[in-house]
């Protein structure tokens, strides 16, 4: 069984994000970039499926600039077999990503596609769902447990107030939540081996997909600064403040 995992190059989760002076986006120059943490969980799950003998091949796909190749290399060092880079310097929104992935899926014919539930840069949480809809496949989103059986997948989902277990007919799309697994770190021997694994390069035009943005960003602003707390003299004053100023009681 072939597994495809989608991996996105995003600003590293340790970096303190700064908004650009012209408010068109966040500062990306000279900023450390890494694989989206939810995608790492996806790669880990795919590699575990391979180690368990369930998956026969793991293909890592990334969409982005030339540097996204490093993100694919990370997936290869974690244990993926080969990579596909869809190279573009344009902004790619979730719908365009889903369309590009659909084209890859049609060419590769995997039984399961694993994606992060969202990327930590734009937090859209749309791509997996859109991909499943475009393909007409079943979807199990926010997975905290995935078990593959004969032609089907049992996915435990993290939903408000508890866990929901769904059974999907394969092929299917799965998006990962934080508790699905703890991704491994690539060992140096595997980093070295990953250098020899193949990465195929394509462009959106090769796949016949129009990636023109459908959404327009008007402006990006810093969240409001948190105000310092204040001391109150009495319980009465506290209740007044909670009632009249904060409006919470």
């Amino acid at each position, binding site marked *: 069984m072939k597994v495809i995992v989608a991996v996105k190059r995003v600003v590293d989760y340790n970096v303190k994000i700064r908004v650009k002076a012209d408010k068109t986006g966040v500062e990306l120059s000279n900023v*450390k970039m*890494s694989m989206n943490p939810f995608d790492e969980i996806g790669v880990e799950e795919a590699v575990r499926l391979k180690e368990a003998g369930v998956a026969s091949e793991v293909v890592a796909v990334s969409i982005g600039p030339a540097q996204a190749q*490093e993100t694919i*290399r*990370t997936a290869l*060092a974690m244990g993926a077999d080969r990579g596909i880079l869809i190279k573009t310097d344009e902004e790619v929104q979730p719908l365009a990503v889903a369309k590009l992935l659909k084209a890859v899926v049609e060419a590769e014919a995997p039984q399961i596609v694993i994606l992060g539930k969202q990327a930590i840069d734009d937090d859209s949480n749309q791509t997996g769902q859109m991909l499943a809809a475009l393909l007409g496949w079943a979807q199990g989103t926010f997975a905290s447990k995935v078990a593959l059986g004969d032609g089907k997948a049992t996915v435990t989902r993290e939903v408000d107030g508890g866990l929901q277990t769904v059974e999907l007919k394969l092929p299917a799309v799965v998006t990962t939540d934080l508790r699905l697994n703890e991704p491994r*770190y*690539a*060992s*140096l*021997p*595997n*980093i*070295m081996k*990953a*250098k020899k694994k193949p990465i195929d390069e394509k462009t959106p035009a090769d796949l016949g997909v129009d990636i023109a943005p459908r959404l327009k960003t008007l402006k990006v602003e810093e969240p409001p600064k948190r105000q310092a707390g204040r001391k109150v003299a009495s319980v009465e004053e506290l209740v007044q403040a909670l009632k009249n100023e904060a409006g919470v009681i």
Partner: protein
Amino acid sequence: MTLEFGVGPFYREEHRAFQASMRRFVEREIMPHVEAWDEAGEFPRDLYRRAAEVGLLGLGFPEEHGGVPGDLFHAIVAAQELARAGAGGLSASLQSHTIGCPPIARLGSADLKARVLGPVLRGEKISALAITEPGGGSDVASLRTTARREGDHYVVNGAKTFITSGMRADFYTVAVRTGGEGMGGVSLLLIERDRPGFTRTLLKKMGWWASDTASLHFDDCHVPVANLIGEENAGFRAIMLNFNGERIGMAASCNGMARAAYEEALAWARERRTFGRALVQHQVIRHKLVDMAMRIGATQAYLEQTAWRVMQGENPIADICMLKNQATQTMAFVASEAVQILGGSGFMRGPKSERIYREVKVNAIGGGAEEIMKELASRHLGW
């Protein structure tokens, strides 16, 4: 942040990938426990196995014995990521094989390599290097531990001290006198921990608490001739060669420690308020921080430049000596200023800076004391 390590023309994609793995390894496996381990004076043996898995132990050793190909910049990345935990004793013990094993990898017989390198690089056994003696440290050519040949054995008598991983090691690479006076009578001998006549005593130290530093005693300890590493009486050169790699590694680590202290002091200075302002808004404090950052930046540049020359096949001994001093002096300056900025908290056990401050001297003395480094440098500069 101007001080990001691991960037610049010397680092390729595979260095950055290894750096990302090392960072996670240190954050996940070491940082949460490091304080408790240092206080306990020991860390779990299992950490060696985990370090082997990430590729740290095998780094730079031959592949046929379980090593991983890597260059000096991988070693710098490894040392500096480990240093982020700010516990040099842990780094030193965890990596004591980087001084214990290179003579075996370079000069050892096939049998020795197979017996020692595999288990050590898999993290199953611990390797230590034993050169320094109670009667004299830096003067290697005058060492007095003897190995007298008797048939197919050497009979070893004498003592070693300040030996990193000295209590727990399984394999000791020991400098012994097999010949006459001076550097021409020194050999390296592999001695296993369970040889009769070999005992160990734990030493208490100013810093590096997580490291099991010990004195070793040899009393008519019989060691097979097959345990000789390289040629008899040719050990001095092997010891000196070993020092080059050790000193570059120490320089990288010391600058990493300096950076850990600097970052802690900076974070503290941003948060702590005195006289109505954050500490960092007081000129005297932010000027201290600039002086710290400046020295760390200069040391990093010298480190990378020197490592690059070694990779090109040069043997710039004078620069390696000066680099080591530059790094230990940077660490001394930065650790002291960091504790000063932390104030009373810096005097309490807990912050990295307090621990790093106690580790300044071991670096300024071990692996070649600052005075010896200056002497060696001036000699190699032809003065």
